């Protein structure tokens, strides 16, 4: 099944009857070929048929089906309106052709905030997504967190298509603006010594400014636990550090860097239950970046 069909089926059970009828009609119209102005108009008109305040809330089976069509595509946090806009994009019958590329670029050019999210979310589902690599990079330069998250999170696009510079910027920007880095798909496949260096520089800046270090920063170290990284982690893990969330994240970072020897030493004297629990979990093998999901629920 294609991404289009998976999403279309999800919408079938979630749109009202009049909106389903509308989507059926415009889907056929788009497939027949529409002007760029009409295409952009339909992206706007979608807001009259689905609300941004309503979550798509896909079920487990639907999420699995989505991930089967494009690995890394996770519509778990999409809104109904975003989903409808993506279906409108995917309804084109010329998606592999230059005409679709130009029409989608027109869409970006005149988009409002909600349309930007819908358009960015569609990119990984298009044929030859790498055509839109510059556009996605532009999306990451946004000042609107909602738009940044639509470009960067729950999609395989950055990990698959970004060059080294854009990739590292996307990672550090997540930390900088507080977008959940564990939702950046493929993080663990593109860790590097230079990314670790950027993260450690940021940790130094934060400490010089008398601020806490964002806990997800420690995800960036991965296996690159050299002397500098260890010193920075030890500082974070210090029992005198009242930023417990940071200590828990640093515990995972030790395990991610295969320093379970140090973790086993530290756990012996650890007094705070939540930090102990993180250390135990890390020692038990929770070392993927997704382990950080749990740190958002407390």
């Amino acid at each position, binding site marked *: 099944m294609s991404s289009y069909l998976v999403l279309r089926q999800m919408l079938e059970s979630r749109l009202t009857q009049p909106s389903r009828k509308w989507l059926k009609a415009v889907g056929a119209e788009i497939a027949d070929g529409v002007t760029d102005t009409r295409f952009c108009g339909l992206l706007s008109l979608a807001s009259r048929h689905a609300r941004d305040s309503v979550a798509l809330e896909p079920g487990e089976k639907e999420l699995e089906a989505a991930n089967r069509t494009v690995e890394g595509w996770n519509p778990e946090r999409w809104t109904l309106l975003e989903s409808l806009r993506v279906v409108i994009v995917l309804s084109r019958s010329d998606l592999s052709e230059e005409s679709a590329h130009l029409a989608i670029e027109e869409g970006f050019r005149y988009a409002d905030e909600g349309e930007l999210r819908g358009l960015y979310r569609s990119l990984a589902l298009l044929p030859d997504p790498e055509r839109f690599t510059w556009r996605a990079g532009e999306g990451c330069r946004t000042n609107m967190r909602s738009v940044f998250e639509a470009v960067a999170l729950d999609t395989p696009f950055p990990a698959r298509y970004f060059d080294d510079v854009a990739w590292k910027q996307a990672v550090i920007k997540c930390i900088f603006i507080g977008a959940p880095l564990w939702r950046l798909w493929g993080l663990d496949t593109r860790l590097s010594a230079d990314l670790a260096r950027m993260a450690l*520089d940021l940790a130094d800046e934060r400490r*010089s400014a008398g601020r806490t270090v964002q806990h997800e920063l420690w995800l960036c170290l991965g296996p690159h636990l050299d002397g500098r990284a260890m010193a920075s982690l030890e500082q974070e893990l210090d029992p005198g550090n009242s930023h417990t969330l940071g200590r828990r994240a640093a515990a995972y970072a030790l395990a991610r860097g295969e320093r379970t020897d140090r973790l086993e030493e530290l756990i012996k004297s650890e007094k705070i239950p939540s930090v102990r629990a993180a250390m135990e979990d890390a020692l038990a093998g929770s070392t993927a970046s997704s382990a950080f999901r749990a740190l958002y629920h407390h």
Partner: protein
Amino acid sequence: MRFFDPHIHVTSRTTDDLENMAAAGVRAVIEPAFWVGQPRTTLGAFTDYFSSLIGWERFRASQFGISHYCAIGLNSKEANNEGLAREVLEIVPRFALKEGVVAIGEIGFDEITAAEEFAYTEQVQFARQNDMVVMVHSPHRDKKRGIVRSLEIARDLGFPMEKLVIDHNNEETVEDTLEFGAWAAFTIYPHTKMGSERMCEIVKKYGPERLIVDSSADWGVSDPLSVPKTAKLMLERGLSPEAVELTTWQNALDAYAQSGQIDVEALLQKPPIDQTQLYADNSVLRGQAPRVEAVPN
């Protein structure tokens, strides 16, 4: 006291802000060209923006007794839209040599890409050829590397370091900036770049020479009174009045007066407020009685 805020985007601020700034002693500002919060898509948008900096915004500030200078340049973020960026680079010289344009800026790095480096290099070269000052924006992410890169490029182009102002420094970057011989500016933001307390510590540690305080107030959460507030705190924390004067007035003046575009003698006089003036038949007033008086400090 009188203050010089050498980095503020007054186009994003209200007349209330301008009034409060003047009342707090802000006598002069520099408004560098930057991005407007979202990417522009046409050359015309840049043309009109640059034009407003040397036109309406200068007039608007003057109506509150504030001398307004500006810097013209293509910012780092929008340098990444390479086609449009090249068009913008072609019109930068049309505005950069106008009266009252004290620098090329703010230019520099955002993501430290090749496109950003191209735009930065072109503009530093233009500044060197025209004996101009350059105001450098430093990145949020990978700041230290971005600053060192912008210093190295300028040095390698033979750009005089005494005409280079590196902005948005922090504790981790100030030493590099000073060692290269450039001016080190600090943006005082309530929550992110630099707070007033930290600024006091930096002035204590490094001394006031070549350090500049600015607000970079814009459309985001920021404070157009950052410079006078920081000056007050510096005095409370025991810094000498001379150090405060250097970091909140004289250093900025010395750095940017190198452009020859600041009439220093006129600036040292108390500027009059005369709201009976019009700009292209437009007034900043909305039916109020015009104020004609001296600035309050």
